[in-house]
């Protein structure tokens, strides 16, 4: 299964590296959202500073929607779905591979956004260990859930609008947990953040297992 996962992840990342859509469009979009937030909330009044963790994660979620739509679209061109079904790759492996590729893209995006927040919002990084673990667990949660829900809507004409409607309510706990953990880290009280990291990890494991189990049904029923 893991060999299959590595194959699929390698393919998705290679396509991404060659097309550079994530790098050239999703990344700039995320930075643009940060700038828009600054317009909406007057930076002079320190609203931005207090809201930084929440704004950061909302931006990550919005950008993740774009990355996930990209990932789902990769599976729809040139009969890739049929080829995958014929390839005898394990569905759980395909799921893991796609989720890993999305996770890798999201991690890069989060680093870029982190720099953006430091430069634009004047955030001072503190509790770096907690920040890093939060990023990894939240990314795993978003990538696994997003890959599962992406498969639910793939191939549909309405998928661009349906994916956010289905996915964002489910990701509400991730936004909550990641934001609280960031607040704790930046506020200098990391002990309060670790339980939220635990929540994110449990969430990631739950949806990874669900996705790996359900992916076969979704591939076959397409």
């Amino acid at each position, binding site marked *: 299964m893991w060999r299959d996962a590595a194959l699929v992840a390698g393919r998705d990342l290679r396509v991404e590296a060659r097309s550079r859509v994530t790098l050239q469009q999703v990344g700039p979009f995320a930075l643009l959202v940060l700038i828009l937030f600054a317009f909406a909330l007057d930076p002079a009044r320190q609203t931005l500073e207090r809201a930084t963790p929440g704004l950061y994660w909302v931006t990550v979620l919005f950008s993740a929607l774009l990355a996930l739509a990209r990932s789902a679209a990769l599976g729809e061109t040139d009969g890739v779905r049929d080829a995958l079904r014929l390839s005898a790759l394990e569905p759980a492996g395909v799921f893991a591979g796609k989720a890993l590729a999305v996770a890798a893209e999201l991690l890069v995006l989060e680093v870029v956004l982190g720099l953006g927040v430091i430069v634009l919002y004047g955030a001072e990084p503190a509790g770096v260990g907690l920040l890093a673990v939060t990023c990894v667990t939240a990314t795993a949660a978003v990538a696994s859930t997003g890959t599962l829900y992406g498969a*639910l*809507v793939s191939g*549909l*004409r*309405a998928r661009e609008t*349906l994916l956010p*409607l*289905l996915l964002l*309510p*489910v990701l*509400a*706990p991730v936004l*909550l*947990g990641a934001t*609280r953990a960031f607040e704790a880290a930046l506020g200098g009280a990391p002990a309060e953040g670790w339980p939220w990291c635990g*929540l994110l990890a449990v*969430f990631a494991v*739950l949806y990874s297992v*669900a996705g790996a189990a*359900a992916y076969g*049904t*979704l591939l*076959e*029923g*397409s």
Partner: protein
Amino acid sequence: MTATTSARTDAGAPGQPADGAAAAPAHTGSRATRVLGILALASSALLVLYGLVISPPDVEMADSVRLMYVHVPSATYLYLGCFFTTFASAMWLWKRTPGWDALAEAGAEVGLVFALITLGTGSLWGRPTWGTYWTWDARLTSTAVLTVMLIGYLALRRLDLDPGARSARVAVLGLLLVPNVIVVNRSVEWWRGLHQGSTLSRIDPKIEGDMLVALMVGFLALGLIFAWLMIHRFRVAWLEQQADRFDLDEALALRRAEASEPSDASEPSDASKGTA
């Protein structure tokens, strides 16, 4: 009132043309559901009587407590509907029979109706009691998220898809419904728990006497309405599936008949042969 009129919801075509195939009923009512509908109406009348006339106003909440006789039961049946959807989705994934698919659809749709009643009565009650229509209480927030999830689920169902592919997708989505709700509820509860106690807990009261009777009558009336709606919605979904299948079978049979027609057929059938 709607009970007896729409009991005859006409599922239309499937019964009429195909006399050879298993005859589908022309409407979703039956003697049992008519009795159920009458009981639902009678108990609703009883609820009006108990809720608005007989039961006394609350010491703290005054007359707004009367909303609770609808609010609490509808929240309960909302969760029951979601449970039906998840259970039926799991059963569909196991058995792959269309009945479970229809039950999952009925549960989600009726559940959404009760979700809207719950949110509506809840915010009307919140205005006089809390001084605001909405507060970020754990239960309110997770009910709102659940409502959006139900809307999303039904949106996926409405899409024009090949029936087999749609059943598999909506079954996976339906299976995740209750687990999603639990995860959202737990995490929101935890989040709000850090700041304040559960706001609603202070109205989880010891109620007694006529107020308790009124609440029980509320559970009975809304329960009967829930059952009545579920049965009818299930039957409509079932008939829709039958109609889909009959339409396809009929079209196939027509085409086959055209193809096997002897060559002395008149011009119009020649023309249709050309397009087929």
